[in-house]
């Protein structure tokens, strides 16, 4: 009985680990990073990509027609900022249209898609969630600071999309799974 419990515990731990971490590098370089919702979190992901030595181009407002296959992985920094949207001169509705077109084109080009949500509770709410849902449905992998998933939204969406979700305690810890995702 004791051995059976140990085996069950081992299997459960293995499963939890596989769900929490991308076990193998899957994303090809270079990457294209964009801001979905125009939050300044985009800047921090650029820093993390630099640290991970992942070559990338960054365009917070990139449109679907600009995707030409030169970038192999699309990194989506998700989280709405009404101020960021205002500064970019784009409405939330137009941003959602841009996002959906971008996701469609990325799928057509067979790009890998990584969702990053690092702004915690400040980047949640109706406007952010409207961006999060389509991105998670299209993603191959997601990295989330745990404070942004207190209601389990990312956990649920990742389960539905059958993708791996790396939950980290803080932004600075998001660099490791991001680096590990790239071949």
């Amino acid at each position: 009985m004791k051995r059976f419990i140990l085996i069950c515990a081992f299997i459960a731990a293995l499963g939890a680990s596989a769900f929490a971490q991308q076990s193998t590098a899957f994303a090809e370089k270079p990457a294209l990073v964009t801001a979905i919702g125009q939050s300044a979190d985009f800047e921090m992901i650029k820093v993390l990509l630099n640290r991970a030595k992942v070559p990338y181009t960054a365009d917070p407002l990139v449109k679907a027609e600009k995707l030409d296959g030169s970038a192999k992985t699309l990194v989506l920094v998700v989280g709405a900022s009404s101020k960021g949207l205002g500064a970019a001169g784009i409405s939330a509705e137009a941003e959602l249209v841009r996002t959906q077109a971008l996701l469609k084109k990325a799928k057509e080009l067979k790009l890998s898609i990584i969702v990053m949500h690092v702004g915690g509770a400040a980047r949640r709410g109706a406007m952010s969630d409207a961006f999060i849902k389509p991105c998670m449905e299209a993603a191959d992998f997601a990295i989330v600071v745990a404070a942004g998933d207190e209601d389990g939204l990312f956990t649920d969406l990742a389960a539905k999309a059958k993708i791996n979700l790396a939950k980290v305690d803080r932004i600075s810890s998001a660099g490791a799974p991001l680096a590990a995702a790239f071949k």
Partner: protein
Amino acid sequence: MKSAYSRPVLLVLLSLILAAAPLAAQPASQAGTAASTPTAVFTQPVHPNFQAALDEQRPGPGVIRIGALSEYLPVLAGTALDSPVYFLDPPVPAAALKQGADSRQSAAADSRLPAILILGGTHGDEIAGVMAASLFVTWAKPAAARLIVVPRANASAGTWSDPDRPGPKAIILETAEGRRAFRYGSRFTRSEDEILPDPERYYPPEAVGEEQSLAGREARNLNRAHPGDEAGSRTAQAAAAFFNLIQKENVKAAFDLHEAGPVSGLAWNIVAHPKNLDYAAMGILAADERGVQMVLDRSRPNNRGLSHRAWGENTEAAAYLIETLNPGQVTGGKPELDHLDNELSPLWKRVGIQVETVMAILMTHSDMDEATGWAQIDGMPGIEALKDDFTRYF
């Protein structure tokens, strides 16, 4: 306003007090380490608001000189908006000392050295910013840059309570050196301290169109007045003096320390000008590694009159505004609120995050800029030290 402190004998007395105060008031742990006594040279009468701001501080051994904001706009001298400016200098290289230079005075005179500017008290009720700036006055030891600190950027706003949003009269700390009080002020310059009446609608500098106009009393909000107007209201003149300071003192990084209320989306934010947004991002990551979580926001073109926009656009300085959560900043105010031990946002946390965030961004400047290490500041207590024994560091 005519100053009560305009007589020459009082000026002499003030100079003597200022000369003695830093050594008498410095923290016990730093006593005896000062290289020389800071000197205050005021050629103009000081206003009671200036004196009140001065009395609040305990300059540490890093302070080489206590000056006045009016040095950068003489028309401010003796007015309600003049405020003490603390200059902290790095050690002079050994080679200069061999040539007989005084280690402090020679560095102070060298305005070619880059400078860091820290403002607290732009809004007098955003008390964690005042207290964090005050910690720099007491503890900071810049390694290579000059550090300039103005704990009460709006000296008038620190002296009155806004009836629309009152707070406690002061934050009182019982320190080993005696009671220390930080006045809990207002967001605005006191009406009586202004020289112009509030307009019906206020248009911040460079505002375009009616939609960028604000309620009339915002004319007395220092953080809607940048980059200022030398011929404008007292508040606009104070903003102009800060602009002149940044230019004259070769300021490369400028911080404006603020707080925001619970319903504001600004709490726990760093707002950075786009030209230095990457530094702020790296600073957030560095702070995050020390357990301090902040959200990055970018300065927008329509942020007319705000420090981060005006300084970032019009000077060489990398401009940052830091916001912590002040649970007392609510409509109607909360005069009875316990700021020190508040469950939601205790003062040790607010002040600690202000300090940690400034230090993390400066570390990024030190790592990334051409003059490596220029922005390093030693001696500051971190958030854990402040959590353990907040009062000790005041």
